[in-house]
């Protein structure tokens, strides 16, 4: 489905700030997988998702998505196949545009944009139906500017936009990290609901180990720009936070004391 092979990504090559963010990263995502990704700060999690989405190209390696080599494909071109939700609720939506305009933009992801109406009358019913699913009463506020919504509402809307046209893969980068715990769990269960209903292949970064264990069928742990642990199925279901911590300690040689991951 989605395959990363031999991916290397280095930032600021040839400067004092040179940073190897991904080192020989290999990952094969199967159709229908829901993978949770954990790892310490700077482990390369976001960089991996950005490389998949085409925000920047890797120096080395090949990315194939549904049999297509997308390694060099521009970000906006592969966007048709990829849904994304970001950590910052401001990033996923256009705050100056209203809810239906945002949805209409998402409804044209990967399609040709011409001089037809930006929001068609026939779409509005469809949007209403979809918004009802969120259970946030947004279906009655389709003309409201998204900038007026709360972070949680924006994140739920972004999730809806990312899946409005079924993506081949959904990339979630700590999409609940900026939300308060209650809203976060609401958005997480929405994520679960939408992805399982439509069987959407998903890669979700989280800093919460409990969530990482609770959600999805597969878990990967990253460190130093590569995957150090990849577990699926029953074995994954039976994981505990302590198992993960032990695994992490073992791989990092004990020097994890300050890491945020420990606390997740």
């Amino acid at each position: 489905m989605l395959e990363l092979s031999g991916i290397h990504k280095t930032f600021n090559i040839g400067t004092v700030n040179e940073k190897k963010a991904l080192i020989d990263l290999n990952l094969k995502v199967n159709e229908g997988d829901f993978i949770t990704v954990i790892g310490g700060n700077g482990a390369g999690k976001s960089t991996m998702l950005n490389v998949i989405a085409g925000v920047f190209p890797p120096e080395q390696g090949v990315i194939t998505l549904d049999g297509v080599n997308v390694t060099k494909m521009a970000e906006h071109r592969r966007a048709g196949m990829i849904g994304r939700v970001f950590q910052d609720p401001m990033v996923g939506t256009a705050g100056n545009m209203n809810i239906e305009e945002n949805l209409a933009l998402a409804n044209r992801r990967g399609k040709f944009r011409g001089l037809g109406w930006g929001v068609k009358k026939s779409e509005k019913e469809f949007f209403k139906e979809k918004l009802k699913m969120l259970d946030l009463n947004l279906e009655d506020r389709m003309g409201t500017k998204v900038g007026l919504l709360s972070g949680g509402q924006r994140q739920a809307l972004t999730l809806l936009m990312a899946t409005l046209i079924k993506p081949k893969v959904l990339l979630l980068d700590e999409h609940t990290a900026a939300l308060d715990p209650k809203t976060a769990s609401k958005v997480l269960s929405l994520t679960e609901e939408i992805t399982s209903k439509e069987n959407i292949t998903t890669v979700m970064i989280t800093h919460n180990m409990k969530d990482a264990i609770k959600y999805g069928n597969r878990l990967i742990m990253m460190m130093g720009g590569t995957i150090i642990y990849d577990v699926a199925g029953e074995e994954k279901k039976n994981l505990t936070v302590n198992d993960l911590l032990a695994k992490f300690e073992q791989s990092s040689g004990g020097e994890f004391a300050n890491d945020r991951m420990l606390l997740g």
Partner: protein
Amino acid sequence: MVIFQTFLTGTNQGLLWAIMAIGVYISYRILDFADLTVEGSFATGGATAGIIMTLCKDFVAKGPAQGIFISVIGLLVAMIAGGLAGLVTGLLNTKLKIAPILSGILTMTGLYSINMIIMGLAIKKPMSNLGLGMVGTLFSKAEEFMPISRNWIIFIIAVIVVAVVVGLLYWFFGTEVGSAMRATGNNERMAKAQGVSTQNSKILGLVLSNAFVGLSGALVTFQQSNASVTMGVGSIVAGLAAIIIGESIISGKFPFWARLLSIVLGSIIYRIIISFIYLAGVNSEYIKLLTAILVVLALSIPLIKEKISKMPRKPKKNAKGKDEPDDTARQDAIVDEYVGEDEARKDTDVLQTEDGADSAATEV
């Protein structure tokens, strides 16, 4: 009578310059692209329309219909020329990754020579000025047609052109391409994630913007029967003044067409004020300084408001530079003084991390 005439000429100038202000609105407000090309492309529009009249002067002299015909061609070519200037700026920014402001300055600087070359085409030697008094313009030719005074003719034609421009843009920004353009200016990362080619959006937006600026330059040239290489100096600030005055008239929830009309109104008010300042005998050299001060004041009001309301803002955890490898974005940020905001974000970053750690710790 003098007062009324001052009103009328002020209104006319306001209408003609409003088209330029709408162009500035497209780049500055919709695309969020501080485009300085305008100062050059305004004169480019004037120069092209002027030279077309001059080169076709024998045909123009045949009669009012011929004159009007050539004038209309002049306006269209002026739009194309302005659009090309915008295209250059767009390509500099998107393909060569030159920061928006610098891209605009480079094009504007280049246009200075090009505009002189255009105005000198008839005598094959660069000129800084091109008079149309002998040749005639759209307005003088229309005057031969109609039994009303020049000012009223300008008024009628200007109203028609402005109405067409506003209508066209109202339609355009409701289309898929227009929506994508608005999204690009509002949130580039979101636009990209939704499959919008933000490069194309920016290029097209700049072409559109400067095409209208060129059209405005051509109309102003026709109105004053003269084009000059410096006619666009200060136009950005004049455009911003119109936009800001307009926004102060209709703040809050208004449909897009009302927003466009508010710019027209803003431009008219601005020009009427200037006309009266002239009438009062104030030296014209002072006007630009006055305008600049006015715009500075108006621009700083939202900032001050924001500073006050910024204090209890929700912490956001996202180091902006991190996910944004785009060089132009970074240059842009520096030029736009977003550097301060970035630092603020970093501060909240720490906050949030601690927060997150706390709540997470209790969860485990």
